[in-house]
Protein backbone atom coordinates (compact mmCIF):
# COMPACT_ATOMS: atom_id res chain seq x y z
CA UNK A 1 0.00 0.00 0.00
CA UNK A 2 1.67 3.14 -1.19
CA UNK A 3 1.49 6.28 0.87
CA UNK A 4 2.69 8.68 -1.82
CA UNK A 5 1.73 9.25 -5.44
CA UNK A 6 4.74 7.22 -6.50
CA UNK A 7 6.57 10.03 -8.26
CA UNK A 8 10.24 9.38 -7.50
CA UNK A 9 13.03 11.36 -9.10
CA UNK A 10 16.81 11.16 -9.37
CA UNK A 11 18.56 14.27 -8.06
CA UNK A 12 22.15 13.10 -7.74
CA UNK A 13 24.59 10.94 -9.70
CA UNK A 14 28.05 9.63 -8.82
CA UNK A 15 30.50 7.11 -10.23
CA UNK A 16 34.09 5.95 -10.24
CA UNK A 17 34.78 3.50 -13.03
CA UNK A 18 37.38 2.07 -15.39
CA UNK A 19 36.52 4.96 -17.73
CA UNK A 20 36.84 7.85 -15.29
CA UNK A 21 36.95 9.05 -11.70
CA UNK A 22 33.52 10.69 -11.82
CA UNK A 23 30.27 10.74 -13.80
CA UNK A 24 31.29 13.39 -16.33
CA UNK A 25 34.62 11.83 -17.30
CA UNK A 26 33.07 8.36 -17.45
CA UNK A 27 30.23 9.49 -19.72
CA UNK A 28 32.61 11.43 -22.00
CA UNK A 29 34.89 8.40 -22.34
CA UNK A 30 31.91 6.14 -23.03
CA UNK A 31 30.59 8.37 -25.82
CA UNK A 32 34.12 8.68 -27.25
CA UNK A 33 34.27 4.89 -27.53
CA UNK A 34 37.21 4.45 -25.19
CA UNK A 35 37.83 1.09 -23.52
CA UNK A 36 38.59 0.53 -19.84
CA UNK A 37 39.98 -2.95 -20.47
CA UNK A 38 43.66 -3.86 -20.24
CA UNK A 39 45.82 -6.95 -19.85
CA UNK A 40 47.05 -7.86 -16.38
CA UNK A 41 50.83 -7.80 -16.17
CA UNK A 42 51.32 -9.13 -12.61
CA UNK A 43 53.34 -12.34 -12.27
CA UNK A 44 50.45 -14.33 -10.84
CA UNK A 45 48.46 -14.13 -14.03
CA UNK A 46 50.77 -16.12 -16.26
CA UNK A 47 48.99 -19.47 -15.75
CA UNK A 48 45.54 -17.92 -15.98
CA UNK A 49 43.44 -18.54 -19.09
CA UNK A 50 41.71 -15.16 -18.76
CA UNK A 51 44.14 -12.29 -18.15
CA UNK A 52 41.99 -9.23 -18.77
CA UNK A 53 40.61 -6.67 -16.38
CA UNK A 54 38.88 -3.28 -16.37
CA UNK A 55 40.69 -1.50 -13.54
CA UNK A 56 39.57 1.77 -12.03
CA UNK A 57 40.80 4.89 -13.81
CA UNK A 58 41.74 6.40 -10.41
CA UNK A 59 42.76 4.59 -7.22
CA UNK A 60 39.99 5.42 -4.71
CA UNK A 61 42.52 5.49 -1.85
CA UNK A 62 43.90 8.65 -3.48
CA UNK A 63 40.46 10.28 -3.35
CA UNK A 64 39.79 9.88 0.36
CA UNK A 65 41.67 10.63 3.58
CA UNK A 66 44.53 8.18 4.25
CA UNK A 67 43.50 7.05 7.73
CA UNK A 68 39.91 6.61 6.62
CA UNK A 69 41.01 4.69 3.53
CA UNK A 70 43.10 2.17 5.48
CA UNK A 71 40.03 1.07 7.45
CA UNK A 72 37.93 0.56 4.33
CA UNK A 73 38.09 -2.32 1.90
CA UNK A 74 38.55 -1.18 -1.69
CA UNK A 75 34.88 -2.03 -2.33
CA UNK A 76 33.96 0.40 0.47
CA UNK A 77 36.35 3.05 -0.82
CA UNK A 78 34.76 3.09 -4.28
CA UNK A 79 31.30 3.14 -2.72
CA UNK A 80 32.20 6.19 -0.65
CA UNK A 81 33.77 8.02 -3.61
CA UNK A 82 30.71 7.47 -5.84
CA UNK A 83 28.22 8.16 -3.04
CA UNK A 84 29.87 11.41 -2.00
CA UNK A 85 29.78 12.65 -5.60
CA UNK A 86 26.08 11.81 -5.89
CA UNK A 87 25.37 13.40 -2.52
CA UNK A 88 27.14 16.65 -3.48
CA UNK A 89 25.41 16.61 -6.87
CA UNK A 90 21.99 16.34 -5.24
CA UNK A 91 22.48 19.29 -2.90
CA UNK A 92 20.49 17.29 -0.31
CA UNK A 93 23.00 18.12 2.43
CA UNK A 94 22.25 21.83 2.05
CA UNK A 95 18.50 21.26 2.00
CA UNK A 96 18.31 20.44 5.70
CA UNK A 97 16.94 16.93 5.37
CA UNK A 98 16.72 15.27 8.79
CA UNK A 99 19.31 12.44 9.09
CA UNK A 100 16.53 10.19 10.44
CA UNK A 101 14.80 10.55 7.06
CA UNK A 102 17.89 9.67 4.99
CA UNK A 103 18.37 6.02 4.05
CA UNK A 104 21.08 4.14 2.16
CA UNK A 105 20.72 1.05 -0.01
CA UNK A 106 24.03 -0.09 -1.44
CA UNK A 107 24.70 -3.50 -2.93
CA UNK A 108 27.73 -5.56 -3.80
CA UNK A 109 28.16 -8.90 -5.50
CA UNK A 110 31.24 -10.22 -3.75
CA UNK A 111 31.90 -7.82 -0.86
CA UNK A 112 35.30 -7.36 0.75
CA UNK A 113 37.12 -10.15 -1.08
CA UNK A 114 40.43 -8.31 -1.13
CA UNK A 115 40.35 -7.98 2.67
CA UNK A 116 39.24 -11.58 3.19
CA UNK A 117 41.97 -12.97 0.97
CA UNK A 118 44.64 -10.54 2.13
CA UNK A 119 43.98 -11.27 5.80
CA UNK A 120 43.93 -15.00 5.06
CA UNK A 121 47.47 -14.60 3.72
CA UNK A 122 48.44 -12.87 6.98
CA UNK A 123 46.78 -15.63 9.01
CA UNK A 124 48.73 -18.30 7.15
CA UNK A 125 52.05 -16.46 7.28
CA UNK A 126 52.01 -14.78 10.68
CA UNK A 127 49.23 -16.37 12.72
CA UNK A 128 45.90 -15.23 14.17
CA UNK A 129 47.28 -12.44 16.36
CA UNK A 130 48.34 -10.51 13.27
CA UNK A 131 44.90 -10.50 11.64
CA UNK A 132 43.57 -6.92 11.49
CA UNK A 133 40.80 -5.93 13.94
CA UNK A 134 39.14 -4.28 10.94
CA UNK A 135 38.93 -7.57 9.01
CA UNK A 136 35.23 -8.18 9.66
CA UNK A 137 33.92 -4.63 9.06
CA UNK A 138 35.99 -4.57 5.87
CA UNK A 139 34.87 -7.91 4.43
CA UNK A 140 31.18 -7.95 5.37
CA UNK A 141 28.90 -7.56 2.34
CA UNK A 142 27.02 -4.72 4.04
CA UNK A 143 30.37 -2.93 4.35
CA UNK A 144 29.92 -0.60 1.35
CA UNK A 145 26.40 0.34 2.48
CA UNK A 146 27.57 0.96 6.04
CA UNK A 147 30.53 3.07 4.91
CA UNK A 148 28.25 5.15 2.70
CA UNK A 149 25.75 5.56 5.51
CA UNK A 150 28.46 6.93 7.78
CA UNK A 151 29.82 9.18 5.04
CA UNK A 152 26.51 11.00 4.62
CA UNK A 153 25.22 10.61 8.17
CA UNK A 154 22.20 8.51 7.19
CA UNK A 155 20.14 7.39 10.18
CA UNK A 156 16.95 6.31 8.43
CA UNK A 157 18.19 2.79 7.72
CA UNK A 158 21.13 1.29 5.84
CA UNK A 159 20.47 -1.77 3.68
CA UNK A 160 22.60 -4.03 1.52
CA UNK A 161 20.98 -6.19 -1.15
CA UNK A 162 23.20 -9.03 -2.32
CA UNK A 163 22.06 -10.60 -5.58
CA UNK A 164 25.31 -11.07 -7.51
CA UNK A 165 25.38 -8.93 -10.65
CA UNK A 166 21.85 -7.61 -10.00
CA UNK A 167 22.80 -6.10 -6.61
CA UNK A 168 23.24 -2.51 -7.82
CA UNK A 169 19.92 -2.53 -9.65
CA UNK A 170 18.22 -4.23 -6.72
CA UNK A 171 19.45 -1.41 -4.46
CA UNK A 172 17.70 1.09 -6.71
CA UNK A 173 14.49 -0.92 -6.60
CA UNK A 174 14.63 -1.04 -2.79
CA UNK A 175 15.21 2.70 -2.73
CA UNK A 176 12.10 3.25 -4.83
CA UNK A 177 10.10 1.13 -2.41
CA UNK A 178 11.40 3.00 0.66
CA UNK A 179 10.21 6.28 -0.83
CA UNK A 180 6.88 4.88 -1.96
CA UNK A 181 6.26 3.52 1.53
CA UNK A 182 7.34 6.84 3.04
CA UNK A 183 10.09 5.22 5.10
CA UNK A 184 12.54 7.95 4.11
CA UNK A 185 12.62 11.30 2.31
CA UNK A 186 15.99 10.86 0.60
CA UNK A 187 17.60 7.55 -0.33
CA UNK A 188 21.18 7.17 -1.52
CA UNK A 189 21.37 4.00 -3.61
CA UNK A 190 24.01 2.23 -5.63
CA UNK A 191 26.44 -0.62 -6.01
CA UNK A 192 30.14 -1.24 -5.48
CA UNK A 193 32.61 -3.90 -6.49
CA UNK A 194 36.37 -4.31 -6.22
CA UNK A 195 37.51 -7.92 -6.35
CA UNK A 196 40.35 -8.03 -8.85
CA UNK A 197 42.41 -10.76 -7.25
CA UNK A 198 43.63 -14.19 -8.38
CA UNK A 199 40.91 -16.15 -6.56
CA UNK A 200 37.78 -14.52 -8.06
CA UNK A 201 39.57 -14.44 -11.41
CA UNK A 202 40.31 -18.16 -11.16
CA UNK A 203 36.76 -18.92 -10.03
CA UNK A 204 35.08 -17.06 -12.87
CA UNK A 205 37.59 -18.54 -15.32
CA UNK A 206 36.80 -22.04 -14.04
CA UNK A 207 33.15 -21.36 -14.92
CA UNK A 208 34.38 -20.53 -18.44
CA UNK A 209 32.61 -17.20 -18.00
CA UNK A 210 35.53 -14.89 -18.82
CA UNK A 211 36.93 -13.77 -22.14
CA UNK A 212 40.31 -15.23 -23.04
CA UNK A 213 40.96 -12.80 -25.86
CA UNK A 214 44.14 -11.82 -24.03
CA UNK A 215 45.96 -10.40 -27.03
CA UNK A 216 43.23 -7.87 -27.81
CA UNK A 217 42.09 -6.40 -24.47
CA UNK A 218 40.00 -3.59 -25.91
CA UNK A 219 38.22 -5.99 -28.26
CA UNK A 220 37.49 -8.66 -25.64
CA UNK A 221 34.15 -7.44 -24.25
CA UNK A 222 31.84 -7.71 -27.24
CA UNK A 223 28.20 -8.20 -26.23
CA UNK A 224 25.89 -9.66 -28.90
CA UNK A 225 28.82 -10.22 -31.28
CA UNK A 226 29.23 -13.62 -32.89
CA UNK A 227 32.82 -13.90 -31.62
CA UNK A 228 32.08 -13.07 -27.95
CA UNK A 229 33.68 -15.47 -25.51
CA UNK A 230 32.93 -14.18 -22.02
CA UNK A 231 32.99 -11.12 -19.78
CA UNK A 232 35.84 -8.95 -18.54
CA UNK A 233 35.95 -8.35 -14.78
CA UNK A 234 35.71 -4.67 -13.86
CA UNK A 235 35.80 -2.67 -10.64
CA UNK A 236 34.10 0.52 -9.50
CA UNK A 237 30.94 1.98 -8.07
CA UNK A 238 27.99 4.14 -8.99
CA UNK A 239 25.41 5.94 -6.87
CA UNK A 240 22.11 7.79 -7.28
CA UNK A 241 20.15 10.04 -4.96
CA UNK A 242 16.40 9.37 -5.02
CA UNK A 243 13.66 11.60 -3.62
CA UNK A 244 9.94 12.07 -4.03
CA UNK A 245 9.27 14.42 -6.90
CA UNK A 246 7.15 16.93 -4.99
CA UNK A 247 9.79 17.38 -2.27
CA UNK A 248 12.64 17.63 -4.77
CA UNK A 249 10.82 20.25 -6.80
CA UNK A 250 9.86 22.17 -3.65
CA UNK A 251 13.51 22.54 -2.68
CA UNK A 252 14.50 23.52 -6.22
CA UNK A 253 16.65 20.44 -6.83
CA UNK A 254 17.91 19.68 -10.30
CA UNK A 255 16.09 16.57 -11.49
CA UNK A 256 18.09 14.26 -13.76
CA UNK A 257 15.24 11.86 -14.50
CA UNK A 258 12.26 10.07 -12.97
CA UNK A 259 12.59 6.55 -11.62
CA UNK A 260 9.20 5.53 -12.92
CA UNK A 261 9.06 1.84 -12.13
CA UNK A 262 10.84 -1.34 -11.16
CA UNK A 263 10.34 -5.07 -11.48
CA UNK A 264 12.07 -8.05 -9.95
CA UNK A 265 11.74 -11.76 -10.59
CA UNK A 266 13.64 -15.01 -10.16
CA UNK A 267 14.25 -17.53 -12.93
CA UNK A 268 13.54 -20.60 -10.80
CA UNK A 269 15.60 -22.45 -13.37
CA UNK A 270 19.28 -22.91 -12.44
CA UNK A 271 21.74 -21.57 -9.88
CA UNK A 272 24.04 -20.16 -12.56
CA UNK A 273 22.72 -20.55 -16.10
CA UNK A 274 20.09 -18.06 -17.26
CA UNK A 275 16.83 -19.37 -18.63
CA UNK A 276 17.67 -19.82 -22.34
CA UNK A 277 14.76 -17.68 -23.56
CA UNK A 278 15.15 -15.15 -20.76
CA UNK A 279 11.74 -15.99 -19.34
CA UNK A 280 12.37 -14.52 -15.87
CA UNK A 281 14.25 -11.57 -17.34
CA UNK A 282 11.30 -10.79 -19.59
CA UNK A 283 8.87 -10.95 -16.68
CA UNK A 284 11.03 -8.48 -14.76
CA UNK A 285 11.07 -6.04 -17.68
CA UNK A 286 7.32 -6.39 -18.22
CA UNK A 287 6.68 -5.82 -14.51
CA UNK A 288 8.82 -2.68 -14.50
CA UNK A 289 7.09 -1.23 -17.55
CA UNK A 290 3.70 -1.97 -16.00
CA UNK A 291 4.79 -0.47 -12.69
CA UNK A 292 5.76 2.70 -14.56
CA UNK A 293 2.26 2.91 -16.05
CA UNK A 294 3.69 2.51 -19.54
CA UNK A 295 3.42 0.02 -22.35
CA UNK A 296 6.18 -1.67 -24.34
CA UNK A 297 5.69 0.79 -27.18
CA UNK A 298 6.71 3.65 -24.87
CA UNK A 299 10.18 2.24 -24.19
CA UNK A 300 12.60 3.96 -26.58
CA UNK A 301 15.84 2.60 -25.16
CA UNK A 302 17.20 -0.40 -23.26
CA UNK A 303 20.59 -0.43 -21.57
CA UNK A 304 21.11 -4.18 -21.64
CA UNK A 305 22.86 -6.27 -19.00
CA UNK A 306 24.68 -8.03 -21.89
CA UNK A 307 27.93 -9.21 -20.35
CA UNK A 308 29.40 -10.76 -23.51
CA UNK A 309 28.86 -14.37 -22.45
CA UNK A 310 27.63 -16.72 -25.18
CA UNK A 311 24.45 -17.87 -23.35
CA UNK A 312 23.51 -14.72 -21.43
CA UNK A 313 23.36 -12.30 -24.33
CA UNK A 314 21.02 -14.34 -26.49
CA UNK A 315 18.70 -15.10 -23.57
CA UNK A 316 18.47 -11.38 -22.84
CA UNK A 317 17.94 -10.52 -26.50
CA UNK A 318 14.89 -12.81 -26.49
CA UNK A 319 13.60 -11.20 -23.30
CA UNK A 320 13.95 -7.67 -24.71
CA UNK A 321 12.43 -8.60 -28.05
CA UNK A 322 9.50 -10.43 -26.47
CA UNK A 323 8.65 -7.84 -23.85
CA UNK A 324 9.70 -4.50 -25.35
CA UNK A 325 9.99 -5.13 -29.07
CA UNK A 326 12.21 -4.47 -32.05
CA UNK A 327 11.57 -0.71 -32.11
CA UNK A 328 13.68 0.04 -29.03
CA UNK A 329 17.31 1.18 -29.24
CA UNK A 330 19.51 -1.28 -27.34
CA UNK A 331 23.03 -0.70 -26.10
CA UNK A 332 25.53 -2.77 -24.09
CA UNK A 333 27.94 -0.50 -22.30
CA UNK A 334 29.91 -3.34 -20.70
CA UNK A 335 31.65 -3.47 -24.07
CA UNK A 336 33.71 -0.54 -22.75
CA UNK A 337 33.45 -0.66 -18.95
CA UNK A 338 33.83 -4.40 -18.44
CA UNK A 339 31.50 -6.09 -15.96
CA UNK A 340 31.34 -4.32 -12.60
CA UNK A 341 29.28 -7.16 -11.06
CA UNK A 342 27.38 -5.69 -8.09
CA UNK A 343 28.02 -2.15 -9.33
CA UNK A 344 26.90 -2.84 -12.91
CA UNK A 345 23.19 -2.14 -12.42
CA UNK A 346 23.90 1.17 -10.71
CA UNK A 347 26.43 2.31 -13.30
CA UNK A 348 24.17 1.32 -16.19
CA UNK A 349 21.29 3.17 -14.56
CA UNK A 350 23.51 6.26 -14.52
CA UNK A 351 24.17 5.70 -18.24
CA UNK A 352 20.45 5.21 -18.91
CA UNK A 353 19.66 8.50 -17.16
CA UNK A 354 22.38 10.36 -19.07
CA UNK A 355 21.09 8.91 -22.34
CA UNK A 356 17.66 10.34 -21.50
CA UNK A 357 19.21 13.70 -20.53
CA UNK A 358 21.33 13.99 -23.68
CA UNK A 359 18.84 12.20 -25.98
CA UNK A 360 21.76 10.08 -27.09
CA UNK A 361 22.26 6.32 -26.95
CA UNK A 362 25.89 5.20 -26.47
CA UNK A 363 27.20 2.67 -28.97
CA UNK A 364 27.95 -0.99 -28.24
CA UNK A 365 31.67 -1.35 -28.91
CA UNK A 366 33.11 -4.34 -30.75
CA UNK A 367 29.78 -5.38 -32.22
CA UNK A 368 31.28 -6.15 -35.61
CA UNK A 369 29.19 -9.14 -36.54
CA UNK A 370 25.92 -9.60 -34.62
CA UNK A 371 25.12 -13.14 -33.49
CA UNK A 372 22.99 -15.23 -35.87
CA UNK A 373 20.44 -15.69 -33.08
CA UNK A 374 17.03 -14.55 -34.37
CA UNK A 375 16.39 -12.18 -31.45
CA UNK A 376 19.80 -10.53 -31.72
CA UNK A 377 19.21 -10.09 -35.44
CA UNK A 378 15.78 -8.57 -34.86
CA UNK A 379 16.90 -5.98 -32.27
CA UNK A 380 18.14 -2.48 -33.15
CA UNK A 381 21.46 -2.54 -31.27
CA UNK A 382 23.28 0.78 -31.52
CA UNK A 383 26.87 0.27 -32.71
CA UNK A 384 29.85 2.09 -34.23
CA UNK A 385 28.79 5.48 -32.89
CA UNK A 386 26.25 6.93 -30.45
CA UNK A 387 22.81 7.52 -31.92
CA UNK A 388 20.71 10.62 -31.38
CA UNK A 389 17.01 9.88 -30.92
CA UNK A 390 13.88 11.04 -29.16
CA UNK A 391 14.04 9.26 -25.81
CA UNK A 392 11.19 9.57 -23.31
CA UNK A 393 11.44 6.28 -21.42
CA UNK A 394 14.20 3.73 -21.02
CA UNK A 395 14.82 0.40 -19.30
CA UNK A 396 17.94 -0.78 -17.53
CA UNK A 397 17.94 -4.48 -16.78
CA UNK A 398 20.35 -6.49 -14.62
CA UNK A 399 20.68 -10.19 -13.90
CA UNK A 400 22.72 -12.14 -11.38
CA UNK A 401 23.95 -15.65 -10.75
CA UNK A 402 21.23 -17.23 -8.68
CA UNK A 403 18.57 -16.35 -11.23
CA UNK A 404 17.98 -12.77 -9.98
CA UNK A 405 16.37 -10.40 -12.49
CA UNK A 406 15.80 -6.68 -11.93
CA UNK A 407 14.49 -4.12 -14.40
CA UNK A 408 14.17 -0.39 -13.85
CA UNK A 409 12.29 2.18 -15.92
CA UNK A 410 13.53 5.75 -16.10
CA UNK A 411 11.76 8.61 -17.86
CA UNK A 412 12.82 12.12 -18.73
CA UNK A 413 12.55 14.74 -16.01
Amino acid at each position, binding site marked *: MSTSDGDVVVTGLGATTPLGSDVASTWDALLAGRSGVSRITDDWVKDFPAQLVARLATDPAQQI*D*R*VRARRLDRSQQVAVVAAEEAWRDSGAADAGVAPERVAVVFGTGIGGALTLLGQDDILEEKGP*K*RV*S*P*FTIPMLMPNGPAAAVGLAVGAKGGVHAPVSACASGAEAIRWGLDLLRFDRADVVLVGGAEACVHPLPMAGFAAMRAMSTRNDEPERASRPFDKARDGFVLGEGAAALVLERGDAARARGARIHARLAGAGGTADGYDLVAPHPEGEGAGRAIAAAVRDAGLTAADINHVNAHATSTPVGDTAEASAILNTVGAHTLVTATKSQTGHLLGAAGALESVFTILALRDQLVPATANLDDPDDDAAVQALDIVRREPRRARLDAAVNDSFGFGGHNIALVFTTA
Partner: protein
Amino acid sequence: MSEDIQTGLAEILEEVAGVAPADATPEKSFTEDLDVDSLSMVEIATAVEDKFGVAIPDDELANIKTVGDAMSYIQKNKA
Protein backbone atom coordinates in the same frame (compact mmCIF):
# COMPACT_ATOMS: atom_id res chain seq x y z
CA MET B 1 65.33 6.22 26.08
CA SER B 2 61.87 7.55 26.85
CA GLU B 3 62.27 10.05 24.01
CA ASP B 4 62.88 7.17 21.61
CA ILE B 5 59.76 5.49 22.92
CA GLN B 6 57.69 8.64 22.57
CA THR B 7 58.93 9.18 19.01
CA GLY B 8 58.29 5.57 18.04
CA LEU B 9 54.84 5.61 19.58
CA ALA B 10 54.03 8.87 17.79
CA GLU B 11 54.98 7.26 14.48
CA ILE B 12 52.62 4.37 15.19
CA LEU B 13 49.79 6.71 16.16
CA GLU B 14 50.23 8.74 13.00
CA GLU B 15 50.23 5.65 10.80
CA VAL B 16 47.32 3.86 12.45
CA ALA B 17 45.06 6.70 13.56
CA GLY B 18 46.25 9.83 11.79
CA VAL B 19 47.35 11.52 15.02
CA ALA B 20 49.74 14.43 14.37
CA PRO B 21 53.11 13.63 16.03
CA ALA B 22 53.03 16.89 18.00
CA ASP B 23 49.77 15.80 19.63
CA ALA B 24 51.16 12.48 20.88
CA THR B 25 52.24 13.79 24.29
CA PRO B 26 52.21 11.74 27.53
CA GLU B 27 49.14 13.34 29.13
CA LYS B 28 46.86 12.70 26.15
CA SER B 29 44.05 10.17 26.52
CA PHE B 30 43.72 7.86 23.52
CA THR B 31 39.94 7.89 23.49
CA GLU B 32 39.17 11.35 24.93
CA ASP B 33 41.87 13.46 23.26
CA LEU B 34 43.11 11.55 20.23
CA ASP B 35 39.89 9.90 19.00
CA VAL B 36 41.52 6.45 18.92
CA ASP B 37 38.86 3.75 19.13
CA SER B 38 39.16 0.28 20.65
CA LEU B 39 39.87 -1.48 17.33
CA SER B 40 42.63 0.99 16.59
CA MET B 41 44.09 0.27 20.05
CA VAL B 42 44.40 -3.36 18.98
CA GLU B 43 46.28 -2.27 15.87
CA ILE B 44 48.50 -0.03 17.98
CA ALA B 45 49.32 -2.92 20.31
CA THR B 46 50.38 -5.05 17.34
CA ALA B 47 52.53 -2.24 15.98
CA VAL B 48 54.12 -1.72 19.42
CA GLU B 49 55.07 -5.39 19.50
CA ASP B 50 56.68 -5.09 16.06
CA LYS B 51 58.57 -1.90 16.85
CA PHE B 52 59.61 -2.43 20.47
CA GLY B 53 59.34 -6.21 20.93
CA VAL B 54 56.84 -5.64 23.74
CA ALA B 55 53.63 -7.65 23.66
CA ILE B 56 50.65 -6.07 25.41
CA PRO B 57 48.13 -8.65 26.66
CA ASP B 58 44.46 -7.65 26.45
CA ASP B 59 44.06 -7.18 30.20
CA GLU B 60 47.04 -4.82 30.23
CA LEU B 61 45.81 -3.00 27.11
CA ALA B 62 42.58 -2.21 28.95
CA ASN B 63 44.59 -0.28 31.57
CA ILE B 64 46.46 1.84 29.05
CA LYS B 65 44.49 5.08 28.89
CA THR B 66 47.07 7.68 27.92
CA VAL B 67 50.13 7.97 25.72
CA GLY B 68 52.15 8.16 28.94
CA ASP B 69 50.63 4.84 30.16
CA ALA B 70 51.76 3.21 26.93
CA MET B 71 55.24 4.73 27.20
CA SER B 72 55.64 3.45 30.79
CA TYR B 73 54.44 -0.01 29.85
CA ILE B 74 56.89 -0.23 26.97
CA GLN B 75 59.74 1.15 29.13
CA LYS B 76 59.05 -1.35 31.91
CA ASN B 77 58.73 -4.41 29.68
CA LYS B 78 61.40 -3.68 27.10
CA ALA B 79 64.08 -6.37 27.17
